[in-house]
């Protein structure tokens, strides 16, 4: 039962981390290697709003998410837009931006145990004999809401439908009057906001550290690769697969292996089925 509950929570957290990455790749085909950096940035912005400017907590969370979204949009607008379509340059440029942000934060002295966000609600309750704190329950609730919201957003709003059109066939979308650059900026901003949302939900469970940025990037990539790059339904499924696999290894083998699971999942998936477990088959695009 414990495995089930914590596996579920872990899976939802992974899905939250990965959705932003999946969204950006699915729509503009840019592997956003700055995802982890945006995650950490949002954490630090929230922290500075709460602790330095002493705004109230929900307000600073919303402001931080909006600013992360704007940062993401600006990164696309000024840098990534120029290298779009060149796979090597996209990866190198976005990774370098992420690296610059993360190491810049480290240089400014954001490290150590001093940076924590308060949990939303203290205390815990017993769920079928297992103690679960309220914060984790809130994470699960928000995670499920976000998945549902994304589904409604992409199926029933004009912007959402535009994004899906871009993802399916960019040229046809262009012909129908959808501005692909504007949509890509929206997607990037939205993906960054999702990274920020994951940050404000998950960071209160631990300290805000720069290393989290790298781990988050790896987990996001793992989930997206296993689920099939670009398919965010696949990403949610893969989050459950990896989430439970991680919890099972932690329980039966040892906590050191948690990250090894994610990395092995990436390597094995790419070797055996590069389009992922739920990705559309496009064999020729990805291998010879």
């Amino acid at each position, binding site marked *: 039962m414990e495995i089930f509950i914590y596996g579920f929570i872990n899976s939802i957290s992974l899905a939250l981390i990965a959705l932003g990455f999946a969204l950006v790749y699915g729509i503009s085909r840019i*592997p956003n290697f700055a995802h982890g950096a945006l995650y950490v940035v949002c954490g630090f912005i929230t922290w500075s709003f709460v602790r330095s400017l002493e705004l109230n907590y929900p307000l600073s969370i919303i402001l931080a998410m909006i600013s992360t979204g704007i940062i993401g949009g600006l990164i696309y607008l000024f840098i990534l837009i120029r290298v779009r379509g060149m796979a090597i340059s996209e990866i190198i440029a976005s990774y370098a931006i992420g690296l610059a942000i993360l190491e810049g934060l480290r240089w400014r002295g954001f490290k150590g145990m001093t940076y924590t966000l308060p949990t939303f609600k203290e205390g815990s309750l017993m769920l079928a004999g297992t103690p679960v704190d309220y914060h984790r329950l809130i994470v699960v609730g928000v995670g499920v809401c976000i998945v549902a919201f994304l589904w409604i957003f992409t199926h029933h709003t004009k912007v959402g439908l535009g994004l899906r059109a871009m993802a399916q066939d960019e040229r046809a979308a262009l012909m129908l009057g959808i501005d692909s650059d504007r949509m890509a900026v929206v997607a990037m901003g939205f993906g960054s906001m999702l990274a920020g949302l994951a940050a404000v939900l998950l960071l209160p469970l631990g300290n805000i550290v720069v290393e989290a940025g790298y781990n988050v990037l790896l987990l996001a990539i793992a989930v997206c690769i296993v689920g099939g790059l670009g398919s965010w339904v696949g990403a949610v499924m893969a989050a459950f697969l990896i989430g439970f696999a991680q919890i099972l290894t932690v329980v039966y083998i040892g906590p050191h292996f948690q990250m090894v699971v994610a990395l092995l999942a990436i*390597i094995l998936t790419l070797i055996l089925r590069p389009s992922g477990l739920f990705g559309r088959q496009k064999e020729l695009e*990805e291998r010879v």
Partner: protein
Amino acid sequence: MMAQTRRKERLDRGIRVRTDGLYALMSWRELSYLTLPRVVLIFGVLALPFVMPSMYWQRVISIVCIYSFLAISFDLLAHFVGLVSLGGAFFVGVGSYLAAILNTSLGLPVALTIPISTVLGATICTALLLPCLPLRGVYFAIVTLMYPLALARVIEALNILGGTDGIMGVASFPSRWVEQYFMIGALLLFLFAIRRLVNLDLGLVLRAVKDNDQAVRASGMNVTFYKAIAVFIASAMGCLAGASLVHIYMWAGISQFALDFSILPIAATVIGGAGTLTGPLLGCFILVPISELLRAFGTLRIVFYSLILVGFIVFRSEGIMVYAQRKYHQFERWVKV
């Protein structure tokens, strides 16, 4: 919009055309036009250990050579075979652990450990990467980025090969002159060998794999086999770099799988000029000393070279070497449209 009345025209210099082929032997001027850049490079690099002011900067030269090996191997894979490998650290890690094990457990001398770990390490790397060779583009990049991370975590989790402490007490080079001239000699050897290689038949096939792999397959050639050869050569250079690194620092550890070894060579390649093979070397000779000078600023130097990298990739993606080659071989003039 203002009508453009003139444009820039680029023409090959006469001397470049004359030095093509056997005519290069016509006069000393033509001969020196051809050999000057190469002579400057070779003697410049060979003279470096003498002009460096202190032991510290002589050590920096060895480090520059190590990064240059990785940069050249990245350039070879990315721009001549079309495999973007973000896993330079994987090659370094395998090479360095092999050399450390050979040296501490079997007691082999430095003269043996480096060649053995180069060949053996390249074989191991190629064998491990073999299943992912059919992958292309982003997929190959991601999988190679994951290999060093996964290997480091496995070593950490299983606590093998010295675990987080690493393997200590590895023998060093006999003297620092041997160390530097070995590094520089090997670097020049590999540089010119690979420049020759990419113009052989094999190089032609490799470039065809990059441009149109379906056509190569249609010609009845095994794409994966040729990719494996390229990966073997590239990982041999990486392992050589790793093995030398171990003997310089007398220590092998998880930090040899660190992202530094993957990122800095890529930055050097982008800055120096992609697809020129000499460019990456130039990039390393610029970037590594800068990052040494900035050591006092801590992690700010990583920020600094990431920003240089972004700047170059977005605004000047051709790199220094391509620009220099153009200026050397061609002249420009304005002509009326």
